């Protein structure tokens, strides 16, 4: 292992940013707060993007590791013990100063602090706690903080940390226990789920405390999230969204993030390099499906099955579902229930709300839908206005598939010409967007 003395601040930041960049979450949403006037910082419910990096991802938080030293040896990770890389750590004060100075200049919404494991989980958590404590209490920082809880650390420590952070996350790392065993030999499923449960329970208690005492300190007010790596292990999309669904239901997570596997190490246990780059389209489809689970009232087993366990390359999960359930269409826009409207391809979350409001004032036709933001070239196969379809349409899967593709469904060009690499993850339009994920 290389340890270099006296690295400049610039070099440290470079190393500890580089080591943190594979963590996907960079959102600052989920809580709202004004500065109390004594320090700097506030939070906006919807979060704010401050920049976009060359990979098109939003930069919202100062995303860094406290240290890239690590006693573990996870096969997919740049920082694993067996890699020969320059190691360094911040001091708590350095973390505070960077955060404050970046924040004043409006570079960032806050801090996302993660870490390799230095000496032991407890030792590392103590250091992280010291940094956050100083940032909150001495520097009086009131902006957003996302912190990683380290599996295996004392519950006490995790609890203390939760009162300083807005969001906490414990990475699930991989979708199944077997995969974890294969690629992260020092971690266990139990070790990961225990702190997750702890944070969940503490959040529940905290909600009651706040009901009783309005000024009680808040514990992880922006909720808990996690992330898993996609494509390093053989799980199907179906398995992955089932895991996500149960995390939402049983652990009340706010978000599950999916991180397309990026080859940083050569290791026999990892899939072979293919030259195709990270599975970005797959990651994108999972985010869309995740949306459908959280906001569109879909269940995992509606979207995929054992027989058909992976998402379609050509269509988003909602469109794919609709094509397989043509018996439920067309629906009458002027009467259909809100939840049914949500299931129509081309009708996003906001459009559905607008339709329900607007139709109370008079019946809607196709021109009105267009104004509302419905993407008619997709929706037209699935809806009627006052009993009429926009064009005569056969309710036939092949026919509609062909027409949708002909009408320029967004993906084929990228899929055929450039492979997944250049794929834009961001389909524009009026669907509900979050970190650039759209479902319509």
């Amino acid at each position, binding site marked *: 292992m290389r340890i270099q003395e006296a690295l400049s601040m610039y070099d440290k930041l470079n190393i500890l940013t580089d080591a943190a960049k594979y963590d996907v979450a960079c959102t600052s949403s989920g809580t709202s707060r004004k500065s109390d006037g004594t320090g700097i910082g506030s939070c906006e419910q919807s979060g704010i993007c401050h920049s976009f990096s060359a990979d098109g991802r939003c930069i919202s938080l100062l995303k860094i590791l406290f240290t890239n030293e690590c006693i573990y040896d996870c096969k997919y990770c740049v920082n694993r013990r067996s890699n020969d890389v320059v190691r360094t750590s911040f001091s708590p004060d350095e973390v505070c100063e960077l955060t404050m100075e970046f924040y004043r200049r409006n570079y960032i919404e806050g801090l996302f602090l993660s870490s390799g494991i230095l000496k032991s989980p407890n030792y590392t958590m103590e250091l992280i706690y010291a940094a956050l404590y100083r940032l909150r209490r001495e520097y009086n920082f009131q902006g957003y903080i996302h912190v990683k809880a380290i599996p295996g650390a004392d519950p006490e420590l995790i609890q203390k940390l939760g009162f300083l952070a807005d969001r906490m996350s414990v990475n699930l790392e991989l979708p199944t226990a077997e995969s974890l065993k294969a690629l992260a030999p020092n971690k266990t499923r139990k070790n990961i789920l225990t702190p997750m449960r702890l944070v969940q329970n503490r959040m529940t208690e905290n909600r009651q405390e706040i009901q009783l005492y309005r000024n009680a300190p808040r514990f992880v007010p922006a909720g808990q999230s996690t992330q898993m790596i996609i494509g390093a292990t053989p799980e199907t999309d179906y398995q992955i969204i089932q895991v996500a669904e149960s995390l939402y239901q049983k652990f009340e997570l706010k978000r599950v993030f999916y991180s397309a596997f990026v080859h940083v190490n050569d290791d026999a246990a990892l899939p072979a390099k293919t030259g195709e780059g990270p599975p970005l389209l797959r990651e994108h489809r999972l985010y869309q499906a995740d949306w459908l689970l959280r906001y569109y009232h879909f269940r995992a087993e509606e979207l995929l099955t054992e027989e058909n366990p992976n998402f379609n390359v050509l269509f988003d999960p909602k469109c794919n579902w609709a094509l397989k359930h043509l018996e439920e269409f067309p629906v009458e826009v002027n009467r259909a229930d809100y939840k049914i409207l949500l299931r129509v391809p081309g009708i996003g979350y906001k459009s559905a709300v607008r339709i329900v409001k607007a139709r109370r004032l008079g019946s809607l036709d196709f021109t009105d839908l267009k*104004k509302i933001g419905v993407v008619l070239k997709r929706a037209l196969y699935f809806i009627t206005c006052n009993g009429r379809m926009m064009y005569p349409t056969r309710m036939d899967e092949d026919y509609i598939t062909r027409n949708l593709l002909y009408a320029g469904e967004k993906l084929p060009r990228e899929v055929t010409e450039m492979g997944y690499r250049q794929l834009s993850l961001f389909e524009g339009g009026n669907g509900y967007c979050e970190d650039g994920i759209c479902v319509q």
Partner: protein
Amino acid sequence: MKTVYVCSDTVTGIFSGIYDAWKAGKREEDCEIALRGQLEQQLFCDYVEAEETEHKAAAVEALIMKHLGAKAYHDIYHAVLSSDPKKGDAVLGTMLAAKEIPDSTRIMEHLSHPKVEKVFELCRNVFGETHSYKGFLRFCELENGVLYARIEPKNQILTCLAPHFAARLPVENWMIHDVTHKTFAVHEAGKQWVIAFGGPADEEVFKRVSDREKEYVRLWRGFCKTIAIESRTNPRCQMQHLPLRYRREMAEFCNNSH
């Protein structure tokens, strides 16, 4: 004959024009609100210069609040800050349309009315630009410790941005310079923000940054470069989210010292 009320491009101006048209009891097709300097001269129209007063503006605000409600006022206020020369007319049209429906507080739901639709669109646009600048605006620290930001917005968004930064940086002295509209939002630590017009002739003051400023800009640029994952490079997507016009004043993209 149609009457065109001509007013200046300010909230007071536009509301005064609306006040005059409203007072005259005009119907939608008989009147229009136009901005001075952005007129398209039409035949067979009367042009009337609106006399602009705070009193008229306050009366229109109260009228909208009372009959259309606070939510609609919020939308209308944002629409009036837009750069679209037809904004005043859209607002007046919306107010007149509200008279025709049973529950005037629901006017903003009538998107099939072209003027209402226009207000809705303008408001969304102003709101969107404000939100973008909440993230993309960059302060630099001047020699005297003041945080200074330059922006070139299309719409007049300073009054929407200032409260956000006042809530966020209450203990700082800061200044946001709207270059397009030659306006400043100025905040002194611990006090209310104010809007100033024109401003100092000496632009050089804004170029003299503090010693450590350059170092933080360097750190930030390094961070933005390193955080990108190379195998995911996607300039098209970056462009979609962060159009070039914002980048001119962003430390991580531009090369000037502030």
